């Protein structure tokens, strides 16, 4: 395959993939094409969307975060236990989000100031968060019984729209504007593509990178809150495929694996593709475990396509 064909295919892939999947599931499952299912699909995938937006920024600056599944598990456990201990849910929610921002900032600071590859730092964080979550719960899930909280993020609606959907929309707009309409966002592209040129142009590279990890923390925190409300409990292994799904969404969106180019809009499409896949496979009773293979192969395809498109030797 030549380079321009690969480029075209890479750019079209999220659209083609979505159309193909929607078409396929519409034809093969009578439950797929209806409003209730789409609403479910949207609320089910809220956490994935938020985390994928954050992952877009992280991959844009040439880093990675492998700790999100574990951190979401840990945060959901902390949230549930604070509520069980009688803390009002808004306070618990804010605290959990703050903890998440702190974890993200720590990941970023160790990566940037310790000059350690982020995949090692976040792998360490993965081990720590998993361990802590189990230590806190003893491997059982902690039920959340504050119904105001559950209802707010599960059944309540504003203007006929489920609240998770509104949060995702707001987060999407915020990320889109940040990347394209702020000084900070434009600088991230420069940092990801050529750190030295960015530094020589007056961009405070290190601060920008730590800030991206902090934003990732914020979005992961929000995602954890939504996930806990959805499941009605806090459990260490509550979202086992979240890291995989988020990275898949960004890569299907065509982001450069070495940083410097990514798009929230295309990540949204990638995340939708993953969400439709998850939803459709459940409807069709596909073995839930096979999704790892399917998604793995999709990423494999996207990765090779991205390398071909950017002209890597082959």
């Amino acid at each position, binding site marked *: 395959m030549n380079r321009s064909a690969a480029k075209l295919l890479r750019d079209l892939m999220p659209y083609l993939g979505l159309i193909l999947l929607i078409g396929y599931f519409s034809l093969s499952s009578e439950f797929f094409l209806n409003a209730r299912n789409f609403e479910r699909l949207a609320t089910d995938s809220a956490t994935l969307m938020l985390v994928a937006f954050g992952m877009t920024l992280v991959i844009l600056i040439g880093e990675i975060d492998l700790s999100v599944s574990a951190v979401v598990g840990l945060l959901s456990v902390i949230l549930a236990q604070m509520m069980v201990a009688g803390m009002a849910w808004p306070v618990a929610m804010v605290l959990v989000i703050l903890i998440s921002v702190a974890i993200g900032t720590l990941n970023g600071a160790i990566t940037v100031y310790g000059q350690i590859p982020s995949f090692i730092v976040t792998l360490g964080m993965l081990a720590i968060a998993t361990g802590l979550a189990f230590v806190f719960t003893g491997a059982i899930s902690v039920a959340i019984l504050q119904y105001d909280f559950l209802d707010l993020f599960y059944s309540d609606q504003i203007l006929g729209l489920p609240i998770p959907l509104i949060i995702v929309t707001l987060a999407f707009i915020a990320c889109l504007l940040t990347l394209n*309409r*702020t*000084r*900070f*966002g*434009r*600088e991230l*592209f*420069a940092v990801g*593509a*050529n750190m*030295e*040129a*960015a*530094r*020589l*142009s*007056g*961009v*405070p590279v290190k601060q920008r990178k730590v800030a991206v990890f902090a934003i990732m923390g914020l979005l992961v925190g929000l995602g954890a809150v939504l996930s806990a409300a959805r499941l009605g409990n806090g459990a260490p292994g509550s979202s086992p495929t979240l890291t995989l799904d988020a990275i898949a969404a960004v890569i299907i969106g065509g982001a450069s694996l070495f940083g*410097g*180019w990514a798009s929230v809009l295309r990540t949204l499409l990638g995340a939708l593709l993953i969400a439709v896949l998850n939803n459709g496979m459940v409807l069709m009773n596909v073995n839930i475990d096979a999704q790892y293979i399917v998604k793995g192969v999709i990423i494999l395809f996207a990765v090779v396509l991205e390398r071909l498109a950017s002209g890597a030797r082959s």
Partner: protein
Amino acid sequence: MTATPRLSLYGITKRFPGVIALDGVSFDVRAGEVHAFMGENGAGKSTLMKIGAGIHRPDEGHIEVEGQRVALSKPSDATDLGIHTVFQELTVLPNLDIGQNLLIGQEPMRGGMWLDRNALYADAQAILDRLDIKLNARTPISKLSAGQRQMVEIARACGETPKILVLDEPTSSLGRQEEELLFDLVDRLRADGVGIVYITHRMSEVFRLADRITVLRDGKHVVTGDAKDFTREKLIAAMVGRAVDERRSGVHVADLQVALRVDGLSQGTAVQGVSLDLHVGEVLGVAGLMGAGRTELARLMAGVDQADGGSMTLFGERFKPGNVADAIEAGVAYLPEDRKTQGLVLSLSVADNIALPSLGTLSQSGWLSMAKLKALAQEWSGKLGIRAASPDVAADTLSGGNQQKVAIAKWLAITPKVILLDEPTRGVDVGAKAEIYTLIRDLAAQGTAVMVISSELPEVLQISDRIAVMAQGRIAGIVSAAKANEESLLELAFTEHADHEAAA
């Protein structure tokens, strides 16, 4: 001499897009001689060396080794024929020891599957002993000085006694004592009958070592002769020889306001106590050989690196930029020398590149005005005549000259009071070069203080009011461009400091 030369090159021509790097150059190296190559930066020395090493292939001409015509199409072709090249960029592996480096790729084996470590160190030690290099083969490279690493690099090339040894500025990172060791080594290799090509910038080395000298200029062969027939003056005259058509009228700096005053600025050994005044409305050229500390000086002035001594004032006020953002804030801009890795973010659009240092002024509490950004990009694309399909195309789709204009435009867009240009015309064609010269003059006329670092002496002479010549980290002299010529500048550039040993 009757013997067939070890290596002969006949009529070698090499073209790169836009330039003729070598134009019909012939020369030969005999057994047991040191043949020195001299020329200004960009005269074609390194291209010639790369052709000899099998890295580049000549477009015209042919090569003979001991009278036999050969084709050198890859590096191993050259080494197989006994031509070994030691590049300035060392390939010695810092995590291994000397023995492992000397015999890498040809480690002695026992029974084909067991590395014979004793033999490895014995063989390596034998090489070191034969060359009289007083090092232990088991010493890790990390414990060696720069000079000792250079010796290891040469020893590797001499593993099997080479027929031809090419050394590219081997003393550039050495102290005086280490230089002497290297000179002794070269003498011994010559006595062993090796033909040595010695590329250098340093006058003293040429007269200390060379049997014959060849001078290149602008890719052309100027002269070859016995070293004893050359004098320092004659050599410099051969290296220059272009007439400079047009000069600046030469402003009287005494009448001008000082914009940036540099006082005793130092950083390690690269920059040692440099003082100079940069005036409003003047163009100060900075000349010097590679590694004289010109770029390092500019980086200190622009806040890229931090000085460890000295001070600066900007329009009379203390100026101590902690990073590039501070310098931008104060109105000091720095165009780095390598456009592709430092000057531009090639994957971003022309507009984004132009706007990058100005994002602060283009945004209000973080929000970027896209209208202002577009206007800024349009304005400067227009002013500099940047030929791009639109400001939204990626910078890497532009020609070299237009890329360089983008790299300059992004700094003009901050309306600097002081601008430091490092090799502003490197890799651009003649047309773009002329445009950049005009631009520099206009900037000065509008009252900007301009400093231009350039390795091309005619360029420095043409665009500067005054010229500061750097040598080995210091200012060797500041002269009026009107009174200077290439000879006098080179003379200054070849200044060697008495305590040069301590410096290295």
